[in-house]
C-alpha cells in the first residue's frame, strides 16, 4: 500500500498534535520510571517521538498513544544505559533493573499518570531550589516552553536561563530531591511554594516588572494552564483560590491598556470589555474556595477581585466589603502591600484624607519607601485633595522608582497635568 504525500502529512500532523497534548504527561511518567533522571527522560521522550514518526505512518496510530510513547521511551532509555554501561560498569545493573518487567506490558492507570504530573510540579518547585530556578524549571518541564521562550518572557539572556535549569537538575540529581508528592504533613508548606511559582509567572505576565509592554499574555496563559492543572489534580481551597484570582484578573486584560499601549486604571476602565465568562468561572471558584471554611490569602484576594467584577463602575463598588476583606487578608497574610491596598480602599470608602493618613503611616515606617506604587498612590490621594505640590513630589518619587515603560508614561502624564481640581495647595 503506497503512502501518498497527503497521508504522510496527515500523520505528521497527528504526531504533532499528540506531542502537544501528551508530551508533558509522557515526560512526567518517564522521569518516574527512570528513577528521577530528568535528562535521561528528556532524551527518551525525544527518541520515543522520533520512533513514532517512523512507526505510526506504517502501523497506524496506536489505540493509546500515551502508553505507546511511555513504553517506547522506556526501551530507548534502557538502550542508552546499556550503551553507557560499556564505559561505566556500575550502570549495568541500573539498566538491568529498569529492564526488569519491561517484557510484559506496563499496567496502565490514569490515576498513576495524574500523580506523575503532580510529582513533576512538586519537584520543579522544591524549596531547596533557588526561586528563579523553580520558575524556569516549571515553565520548561511542566509547561514545555523552550529555554529561549522563557528567556524572552523574563527579559533574561537565554544562556542564563539554560544555566539555571542545568544547575537545578544537577541539584535534584546530586542532593537527591525525590520525585514524590509531599506527605499530607508537608503538603501545606510545599503547596505554598508551588502556588508562589504559579502566581509569580502570572504576575510577570499580567504586570511585567520592566520593559516595553504592560502585559505578556503568553505568561498569564501558561500560569492559568498551570492553575487549571493543579485544580484538576489537587483541588485544595487555595489552589482554587489562586486560579479564581488569576481568571478574575485576566478578565480585565483588554480593558487595562488603551489601543496605543497605555495603562487604563481600574476606575477608568470600560467594563463592557471585561470578559464575562472568565468572571463567572473565577467567581464560582472563589465561592467554592471560600465555602470550604479553610480561607487563605489567594481566595481572599479572589473575593476582592470578584467584588470589583460585579460592580458596574468604581463609584457603586461595595468599598465597605472590600475594606472588610482586606482586614481579613491583613490578618491571614500581613504585609505592607496588603496594607497599602487596604488604604486605597479606605480612601474610596471614607475619602482621600482617611486613605492618605494610612499611606503616610506605612511610608513613615519605611516599609514601602522604594515601592513606586506606594508613592503613586500617595500622589493620587494628594491630587484629589488638591495638594498639588505634594502630589507632584510623590509622582516624581514614583517615576524615579518605576521600571515598566507604560507605568513611567502614566506617571509622566500625571506630572504634566495642570493642577487637578481647582483648589490650590494650602
Amino acid at each position, binding site marked *: 500500500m503506497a503512502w501518498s504525500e497527503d497521508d504522510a502529512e496527515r500523520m505528521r500532523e497527528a504526531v504533532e498534535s499528540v506531542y502537544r497534548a501528551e508530551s508533558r504527561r509522557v515526560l512526567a511518567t518517564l522521569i518516574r520510571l527512570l*528513577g528521577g533522571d530528568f535528562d535521561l527522560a528528556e532524551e527518551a521522550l525525544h527518541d520515543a517521538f522520533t520512533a513514532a514518526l517512523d512507526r505510526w505512518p506504517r502501523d497506524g496510530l496506536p489505540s493509546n498513544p500515551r502508553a505507546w510513547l511511555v513504553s517506547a521511551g522506556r526501551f530507548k532509555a534502557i538502550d542508552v544505559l546499556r550503551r553507557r554501561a560499556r564505559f561505566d*560498569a*556500575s550502570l549495568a*545493573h*541500573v539498566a538491568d*533493573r529498569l529492564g526488569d518487567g519491561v517484557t510484559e506490558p506496563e499496567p496502565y492507570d490514569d490515576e498513576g499518570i495524574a500523580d506523575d504530573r503532580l510529582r513533576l510540579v512538586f519537584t520543579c518547585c*522544591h524549596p*531547596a531550589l533557588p526561586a528563579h530556578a523553580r520558575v524556569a524549571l516549571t515553565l520548561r518541564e511542566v509547561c514545555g516552553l523552550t529555554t529561549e521562550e522563557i528567556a524572552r518572557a523574563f527579559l533574561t539572556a537565554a544562556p542564563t536561563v539554560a544555566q539555571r535549569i542545568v544547575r537545578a537538575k544537577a541539584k535534584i540529581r*546530586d*542532593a*537527591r*530531591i*525525590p520525585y*514524590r508528592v*509531599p506527605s499530607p504533613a*508537608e503538603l501545606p508548606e510545599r503547596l505554598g511554594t508551588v502556588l508562589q511559582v504559579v502566581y509569580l509567572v502570572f504576575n510577570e505576565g499580567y504586570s511585567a516588572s520592566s520593559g516595553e509592554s504592560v502585559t505578556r499574555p503568553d505568561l498569564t496563559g501558561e500560569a492559568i494552564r498551570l492553575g487549571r492543572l493543579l485544580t484538576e489534580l489537587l483541588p485544595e481551597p487555595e489552589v482554587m483560590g489562586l486560579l479564581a484570582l488569576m481568571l478574575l484578573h485576566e478578565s480585565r486584560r483588554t480593558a487595562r491598556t488603551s489601543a496605543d499601549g497605555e495603562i487604563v486604571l481600574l476606575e477608568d476602565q470600560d467594563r463592557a470589555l471585561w470578559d464575562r465568562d472568565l468572571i463567572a468561572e473565577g467567581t464560582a471558584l472563589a465561592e467554592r474556595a471560600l465555602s470550604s471554611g479553610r480561607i487563605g490569602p489567594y481566595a481572599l484576594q479572589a473575593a476582592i477581585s470578584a467584588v470589583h467584577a460585579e460592580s458596574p463602575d468604581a463609584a457603586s463598588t461595595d468599598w465597605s466589603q472590600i475594606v472588610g476583606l482586606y482586614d481579613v487578608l491583613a490578618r491571614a497574610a500581613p504585609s505592607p502591600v496588603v496594607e497599602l491596598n487596604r488604604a486605597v480602599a479606605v480612601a474610596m470608602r471614607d475619602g482621600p484624607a482617611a486613605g492618605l493618613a494610612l499611606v503616610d503611616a506605612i511610608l513613615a515606617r519605611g516599609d514601602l519607601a522604594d515601592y513606586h506604587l506606594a508613592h503613586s498612590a500617595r500622589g493620587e490621594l494628594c491630587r484629589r485633595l488638591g495638594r498639588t505640590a505634594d502630589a507632584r513630589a510623590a509622582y516624581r518619587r514614583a517615576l524615579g522608582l518605576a521600571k515598566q515603560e507604560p507605568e513611567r508614561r502614566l506617571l509622566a502624564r500625571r506630572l504634566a497635568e495642570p493642577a487637578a481640581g481647582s483648589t490650590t495647595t494650602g
Partner: protein
Amino acid sequence: MRYLCLIHAERTYEDMAEDEAVPLVREFRRFTEDLRASGQYLGSNRLLPAATATTVRVRNGRLSITDGPFAETKEQLGGYFLIEARDLNEAIQVASRIPAARHGAIEVRPVAAPIRLPGDPEPAAAEARARV
C-alpha cells in the same frame, strides 16, 4: 544516601548560662537517641568555639598559619550530625529536628561517593546498589 548536617549558630554552650545550656544539652541527647533508634545516626561532634580555630594554608611551599576560622561570619560552625536518609526530603526532616535549628541554621550537604581512579578495585555490589 549520607548527608552532613552542619550546625551554624551565633552562640555555643560556652556563651550560655547554665540554666539555658543544661536543657539544651538534654534536648540534643534525646534527639541523638531518637536518631540512633531510627537507624539514621552515623556520627556527630560538637566543636569548640570559633575563637579556638586556626586556619592553615601552604602557598609556594610556605606554610601560613592564621588565627580564627576560614570564614569570619556572625554565625559559626558549632558541630555536625552525619546522617543516613533516603532522600533530601528525609534529610531536611531530620535537620529540622536538630534543636539548634530553632536559633541557628543547619546546612544540609549530600556526602559524595568516593572518586574511583583507574585501577581501583570494583566497589562491592551492595555499595554500588546503595549509590543508585
